[in-house]
């Protein structure tokens, strides 16, 4: 294999740049394409010469020499053809890879509010099928420049050399076929669009009938829905027939039209042979070239269609093809002496209208654990999320006396680790899920999250594949792997949003104890609705539904906050109320 590299490119939103980027490959395509397509007329010419040699009754040796020349020529021509075909495909292959990379890079570097507005399904279609369609069109376009343009020109010139009059008369019908194909293109497009619309309608109806089968069955309307499905299918059938008949059945007709000139070729060419102007070999050569040209012309319709299709796709992916982006990885932070000070923090999602949290103020420093709790929808998770600086916020969040929004995104990610209540695992090994590319030892961190016993039961150890979204692990294992990832770099601030929902109480207590002892350089913010462990942490923020908040230690809140005390006592009597294993 040649050197393979998939690289970023500049100005990916101009389609011409994809050809410019692949200079070597494109040069090969041009050279081999021109050479093959021009030399290709030699095939019919030599085939005619072979026939003439029989007519002349040449000696066996010269016959054999001619035959070998013919084979060698075809061999050389086909070798060039092979290179042309291969390089055109390689061009398509690397263009597709580059486009995919650029789109991926664009998606990954969109801001969080921008990403919230994107639909996953749409992005997937763009990154996959639109790229395919677009590249397919680019490939066909490159191929046809040679296979239609150059080949037809060289056939035409050769034929003109053989006989000007016959060529002009016979070729009159070829443009007719091409024009007809071009004209019919619009009608075909209309019909096939109607077919595709109905087809996706049927797909949706089918999906609906299956997805909601129990709903329809419980309401006894399945029979009546089926009658409608039957009508829809009938409609689809008619549309499919109309679209397909025009698209596939017309090609033989174009061919017949383009071939009309064969009458001239046989009559005038035959007469020319009889009059001694041509040899029989010339006649045979000419017929082969003419038929090849006519068949090219009748296939032109297909080319029109595929280029049109790819244009639509190109328009769709174009907005995603922007210049390559890289995060600035310059870091200017003090890894020690962490101080966090939050003043009058208010936060509202870009899509929402009202503040979820209002006027939150607290301070913390390394070695502390700050607990955040509150009833459902009191804004616990939002408080955790707002401390990441992914969204704009009101008020002030200062880390070591510098405003959070003044740090770069990269600096923030190096200072703050965050664990959301979804474990967000990748279908990779346990090791890779924890280190995410930062090669280092994970023994300690696995011990901190009490994973050693689990690990011992896994034959592949830390190289165990976790499956899609961690499906091969239990809920508690997923949560602890995600926690290990969060703890790994001992960041200045570690935010844990309800990480123990699927972990049993004893393990939870053990993990908290480990974190307390082994992460003394970090400030930990623990969001939870389970208050049992809160008795052992430094300070607590209790959020109310009316957006007020109370601050204090466990003992202070037990005395001053009625709600807190009541919940704490209820949870003690209700026992283990988690939903995990």
């Amino acid at each position, binding site marked *: *294999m040649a050197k393979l590299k*998939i690289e970023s490119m500049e100005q990916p939103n101009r389609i011409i740049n994809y050809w410019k980027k692949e200079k070597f490959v494109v040069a090969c395509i041009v050279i081999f394409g021109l050479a093959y397509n021009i030399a290709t007329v030699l095939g019919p010419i030599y085939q005619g010469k*072979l026939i003439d*040699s*029989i007519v002349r009754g*040449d000696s*066996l040796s010269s016959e054999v020499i001619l035959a070998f020349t013919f084979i060698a020529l*075809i061999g050389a021509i*086909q070798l060039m053809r*092979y290179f042309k*075909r*291969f390089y055109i495909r390689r061009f398509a*292959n690397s263009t597709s890879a580059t486009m*995919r*990379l650029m789109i*991926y890079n664009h*998606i*990954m570097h969109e801001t969080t509010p921008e990403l919230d507005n994107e639909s996953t399904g749409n992005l*997937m279609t763009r990154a*996959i099928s639109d790229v395919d369609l677009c590249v397919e069109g680019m490939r066909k376009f490159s191929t046809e420049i040679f296979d239609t343009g150059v080949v037809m020109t060289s056939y035409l010139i050769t034929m003109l050399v053989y006989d000007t009059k016959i060529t002009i008369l016979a070729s009159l019908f070829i443009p007719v076929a091409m024009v007809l194909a071009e004209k019919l293109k619009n009608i075909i497009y209309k019909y096939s669009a109607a077919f595709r619309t109905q087809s996706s309608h049927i797909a949706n109806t*089918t*999906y*609906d009938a299956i997805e909601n089968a129990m*709903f329809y*069955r419980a309401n*006894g*309307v*399945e029979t*009546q829905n089926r009658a*409608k499905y039957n009508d829809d299918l009938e409609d*689809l059938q008619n549309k499919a*027939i109309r679209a397909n008949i025009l698209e596939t059945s*017309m090609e*033989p007709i174009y*061919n*017949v039209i383009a*071939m009309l000139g*064969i*009458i001239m070729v*046989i009559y005038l060419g*035959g007469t020319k*042979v*009889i009059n001694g102007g041509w040899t029989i070999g010339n006649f045979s050569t000419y017929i082969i070239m003419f038929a090849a040209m006519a068949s090219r012309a009748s296939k032109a319709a297909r080319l029109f269609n595929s280029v049109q299709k790819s244009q639509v796709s190109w328009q769709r992916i174009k907005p995603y093809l922007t210049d390559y982006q890289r*995060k600035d990885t310059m870091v200017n932070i003090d890894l020690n002496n962490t101080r966090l000070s939050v003043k009058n923090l208010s936060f509202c999602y870009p899509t929402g209208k009202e503040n979820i949290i209002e006027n939150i103020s607290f301070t913390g420093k390394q070695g502390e654990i700050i607990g955040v709790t509150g009833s*459902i929808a009191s804004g616990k998770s939002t408080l955790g999320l707002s401390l990441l600086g*992914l969204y704009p916020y009101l008020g002030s969040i200062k880390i070591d006396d510098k405003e959070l929004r003044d740090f770069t*995104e*990269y600096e923030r990610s190096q200072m703050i*680790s965050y664990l959301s209540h979804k474990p*967000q695992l990748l279908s990779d090994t346990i090791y890779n899920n924890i280190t*995410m590319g930062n090669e280092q030892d994970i023994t300690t961190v696995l011990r901190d999250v009490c994973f050693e016993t689990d690990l011992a039961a896994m034959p592949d150890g830390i190289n165990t594949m976790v499956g*899609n*979204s961690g499906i091969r692990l239990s809920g508690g294992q997923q949560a602890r792997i995600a926690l290990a*990832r969060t703890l790994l770099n001992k960041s200045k601030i570690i935010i844990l949003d309800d990480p123990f929902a699927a972990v049993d109480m004893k393990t939870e207590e053990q993990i908290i104890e480990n974190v307390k002892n082994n992460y003394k350089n970090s400030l930990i913010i623990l969001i939870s*609705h389970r208050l049992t462990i809160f008795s052992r942490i430094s300070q607590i923020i209790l959020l109310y*539904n009316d957006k007020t908040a109370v601050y204090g230690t466990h003992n202070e809140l037990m005395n001053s906050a009625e*709600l807190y005390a009541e919940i704490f006592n*209820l949870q003690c009597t*209700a026992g283990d*109320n988690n939903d995990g294993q």
Partner: protein
Amino acid sequence: MMGNSLVKKAITNVVKQNIGIDVLLVVAICGVVITSLVPPQMLRYIIDHNLVPGSSDKLLSLALAYMGVLLFIGVFDCMKEAVLTVLGQKITREIRLDMMAKLANINALFFSTNESGNIVSRFTNDVDAINSLFTNGIVGMMIDCFKIIGIVVSIWMFSATLGMITLILLPIIYSITRLFQKKMLKAQIENRILVARVNNHISESLKNIQMIKVYSKESYMEQSYTERLLDNYQTVEKVNFYDSVFSPIILLIRAVVIAVIVVLSSKQLNILGISLGMVAASIDLISNLFTPIENLGMELQNIQQAVSGMHRVNDFYNEPEDDVKNSSLHMDGIVPKREELSLSFNDVTFQYEQGTEVLQDISVQLNPQDNVTFVGRTGVGKSTLFKLVMGLLKPTKGSITINGIDVYQIPNLEKRKIFGYVDQSFHTIPGTVAEQISLQDTSITREQIENALDFVGLTDYVGSLENGLDTQVHNDTLFSQGQRQLLAIARAIVTNPPILLLDEITANLDSITEEKVVSVLQKASNAHTILSISHRLSSMIASDTVVILENGRVKNAGSPEMLLQKDEWYRSHIALERLTWS
């Protein structure tokens, strides 16, 4: 080939019902095969009778006739394509229709073990594959076989020796073709797996985008994306190699064959003993031999691939069905008087798979117009219980009866008259507002719809819409979340069923809408037997009985007052709930 083949049945049906089209197909196939053999023969005639002797006798008519034959080939070809399209589409439709009929009778368990996307692909991709199996596969193969036979026979008529050579050539070309096709298929399958990995990486990145951003792992993710792209690139390169090299090799072989024929027919050797016209015609015929052989290999491959689709469709067709319902059961017979309806669970046990009971020995007797709430953690089988009540699932042991009649026996068409089912999501069907309520059931009158709408208090709002009840519901913005929930209730009560089943209906509502929904239900509770499911203990409407489910069994049951006194777990959770803690 298979026990109960839907595909075979559908194809036979379509072929039987469209005799006219079948005849056209046979004509077209014969026409294509025969006419395509004629041009080389005419060429031979022209060379041997006009060009070699130098006579222009009938040359113009021959030229015209030649064109005439080409015209016939074109027409037959066009006809063949058209007829195949029509037949293929009819078969597709027939199969889909039969599958839909099957879907109505399939055992409800099927849906819990199969993902919707998976089933849909049987209706779409697999059926399409069967269509192309018929058109491109079987029929295409027949045509190509005939073409090959025709060519061999034509050549044999010129010279037996050349005919023999052609026969020897056939397996050689075929095996080269198959070798390449197999290698390509292997590389393609390999590639498909890698493409799936690339795609999966994209969807995974999008799913975990927050985590990636928070940890600044964009470049790490891009790195592993590039690795996957590179793997994909390499296999595509392999496919490309075979793809690019195959056709040049075939053309080279053709050149060799042509050269051999010419040398063999040279004056000195003259082994074949054929005229110049025959040489030219043989070259033409042999050139035409390559395409059908190439197609044959592709068709075989298509058939192999489509066969797995056919198996999936047939497997679907052979899925177990629900037991036949007792069609003599009607609403009036089952519930003669709604005030005297008694619903009872008699030792109901249910399992989806052997050994994993979702529900065990549930026995509850309901008094007429009782109001019962089932509570318990998610995953204790509450929703399964409702499916059992409506007779959609069959209990593994025990039974559920209404006035002594087993609910599983009740035909689906009668169910809506007996049960009104509301769950937390409102499923919008394509159609008007009125149709959202009637579900396009023509036996439901306009008056019934208006009454139902009035009952849930949506009359004014719907009246304010552009076309009132006949407004098309295109998107989700027409009704708010709460209004949709009220519509769901209207849909359930429109047939005035004696039993209402409410599945977590207030789960997604804000407190104001919740109040409205509850007041509507309170109104309904006087004339209905109501069963509700809730993950919350304090049901919105006052229940007569609360049944606490745990691990598939009834842990405790009784009036709310009684449970508050006797069940400690119930008591503390009621308190936590009051504080909206969890």
